[in-house]
Every structure is written in C-alpha cells, then in structure tokens.
C-alpha cells in the first residue's frame, strides 16, 4: 500500500512538472494577431465612458494596448457655438496617441455588408490602420451578429487587405467559416452586447477556442471580473469589454479588476487544473494524528489515505 502510494505520487509529480514546463512557454507567448504582439490580453472598448478623463484613467488601469473606436459623421459647425461636441469626441484620437494604445476601429451600427465595408474603408483612411473590428448586426433590438453578412463582409475585407477581427455569435461553425475566410481572429459573444450577462454558453466558447486556428477573443456580455476570468479559463486568448468598465460605479477599479481577471484566467487555463471529484479528499496526512483518551479515532478511510 505504502509503495503503491509513493509510486503514484512520483508519477503525478513528474506529470505535473511536464505540464508546467509546457505552460510556461505559452504564458510567456504574448497575444499575437496577424504577426503583431500585444502586451495585454484585454481589449478595452471606449463606448459609454462618462468623460474622456475617466476613460483615460480606466484605460491606464486596464493595461490594454488595443482599444476600439467607432466611426461617426463629424458634427457640422453650428453658428454661434464654437467647438461643438465633436471637439470632445475627436480628442479620443489624441488620447490614444498619447497613451500609445493601438486603435481598433469598428463597424458598429452597420446592418448590411455594404455599410460595413464602406465604414471599414473609411476607418482605414481615418485611423491609418488596416485592422478592423467587423460588426454586421442583424437588427437594432437584439444587436446579434448576422452570420451570413459577417462572413460575406469578412471575405471582401480580407481580399481588400484588411486585418479582420469579426464580432460573431457563439456558434463554432460560423467561427470556423470566419477563420477559413482569412480573419486574423474571431470574437464570439458571451451574451448580448451591453447585457452584462456573462458567458451564456460556455461549452460553445470552449469548443470555438479549442478548434480555432486563429486567436479567439471573447467579445460582449462580460459583466464582472469572474466572467472575464472564465472566458480565459475556457481557452480564449483575450477578452474585449467596454460597458462592464465604463458603466461600473468605479470604472478605474473595475478596469484593474478586469486586468487581473484576464491574467488570472489565462494562468489558470495553462496551469493544468486539478481533476474534479464527486467526493471530498483530505489534503492533510492521515498518519500522526493526536490521540485523545488513548484512542486514535476512527480508522483512516479511503479519502484520507489517498491524500498522500
């Protein structure tokens, strides 16, 4: 019994050390999209921030190196009111430059392939990047991705030289089509945009991450830090979120929480978690327990014995 136990402990130890050697490599490898390495696996959206100042603090606290921006019509100058709201909005551009954060323009608000393609082309011209977060949304109530339109637009944009990061639903087959179309990453939703409901279908997210030849970034639905950690534990390569930070009561604190959650989830995903058991398993040695009144208590049972 004692010999068997020692042997199994030894073999377990050697397995564990092999696993941790392998995972050290993947922890050190940064998130790389289309050949560009990013220092953070957290992509922060900028929508919903109360002010640029609050946004700046949250961006810094999040540690993000990639941040989404939307493309919108410039405000027409109104007589008498110098510097309309557009002045404040356009300075998001200066803010990202100052912080050294790469912009990821999106096609938010596009319902058709044509709208999305033109918006992407405008974004490339305005932002000086061929990276685009592709969104072709089915309707303005659910805000769910239109799979057919997204795949069609992705093909057009890839052919046009874009680095395409498509927002998609949590369907593994659509994700495969997008990767086949040449997308640089796929970004499945956890739950609907702005809902904060977390990851509604973790098995699908896990399946997408397991099969994808390109990085998988969970996009939309994150409400709190545990959602972000779960996304990483399911095998995602990164997390994109906005509202969870910008609409938190304390956005800076939540941004920091998200940074730590993404790091923790990534480490956990590659640390080789322990197997789940149906029954308890003591972690303290069974031998050498104190005796009270001359008895050593009940005989050690299987669960205590196994603890060695």
């Amino acid at each position, binding site marked *: 019994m004692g010999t068997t136990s020692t042997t199994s402990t030894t073999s377990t130890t050697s397995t564990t050390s092999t696993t941790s050697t392998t995972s050290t490599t993947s922890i050190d490898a940064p998130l790389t999209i289309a050949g560009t390495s990013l220092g953070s696996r957290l992509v922060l959206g900028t929508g919903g921030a109360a002010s640029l100042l609050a946004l700046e603090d949250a961006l810094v606290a999040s540690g993000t190196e990639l941040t989404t*921006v939307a493309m919108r*019509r*410039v405000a*027409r*100058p109104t007589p008498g009111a110098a510097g309309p709201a557009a002045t404040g909005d*356009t300075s998001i*551009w200066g803010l990202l430059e100052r912080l050294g954060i790469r912009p990821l323009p999106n096609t938010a608000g596009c319902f058709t392939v044509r709208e999305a393609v033109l918006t992407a082309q*405008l974004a490339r011209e305005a932002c000086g990047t061929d990276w685009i977060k592709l969104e072709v949304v089915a309707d303005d109530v659910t805000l769910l991705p239109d799979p057919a339109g997204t795949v069609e637009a992705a093909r057009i944009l890839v052919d046009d030289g874009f680095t395409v990061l498509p927002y998609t639903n949590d369907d593994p087959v659509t994700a495969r089509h997008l990767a086949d179309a040449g997308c640089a990453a796929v970004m499945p939703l956890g739950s609907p945009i702005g809902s904060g409901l977390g990851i509604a279908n973790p098995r699908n997210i896990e399946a997408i991450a397991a099969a994808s030849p390109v990085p998988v970034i969970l996009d939309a639905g994150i409400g709190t830090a545990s959602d972000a950690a779960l996304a990483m534990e399911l095998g995602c390569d990164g997390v994109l979120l906005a509202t969870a930070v910008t609409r938190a009561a304390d956005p800076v604190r939540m941004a920091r929480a998200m940074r730590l959650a993404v790091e923790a989830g990534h480490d956990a995903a590659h640390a080789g978690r322990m197997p789940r058991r149906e029954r308890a398993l003591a972690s303290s040695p069974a031998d050498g327990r104190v005796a009270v009144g001359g008895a050593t208590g009940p005989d050690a049972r299987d669960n205590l014995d196994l603890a060695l």
Partner: protein
Amino acid sequence: MTTSPDTPAGPARPAALVNGEPYPLDGPVPVTDLVARLVPEVVVDGVPRGVAVAVDDAVVPRGAWDRTEIRPGMRVEVVTAVQGG
C-alpha cells in the same frame, strides 16, 4: 446616384448632401477645403488627422483630396473616430 437631394423650400440653390444634410455650393469645392471648413480643429500643420471622406459611397484617399471636387448633387460622408465599441 442620379437623384439630387431634396432642396429646402425657397429659391433653389445648388447643394451637395454632406453627412445627410444639404450643403450649399456656389461652385466646385475640393475635398481638402470642405474638410477644413467642416472640422478646422482636426487640421494640424495643414494636415487633417483622423478624418476620412467618401463621395457617392467610395472612399476618397487623402492623396486625392486636392484634385477631387465636390459638386452639387454629390453625397459626401465626412467621418472621424469617436468613443465606441
């Protein structure tokens, strides 16, 4: 493509449709000048930053702004990056 934007009531004045609203034109205007008039704050040292222009659903590359003229009846989109996503 061939339809002109709705002209407001009153004496008809030639106009392009800029960001969805009629923009009166007395003559052709290069894209460069239109941008400078619309958003002077984005022009730094004579170079507009963070802005893109499409005319009749086609992007006009910045290098072609000087020689591309906006004429009445054209549909123009002038966009920039804002918070979002």
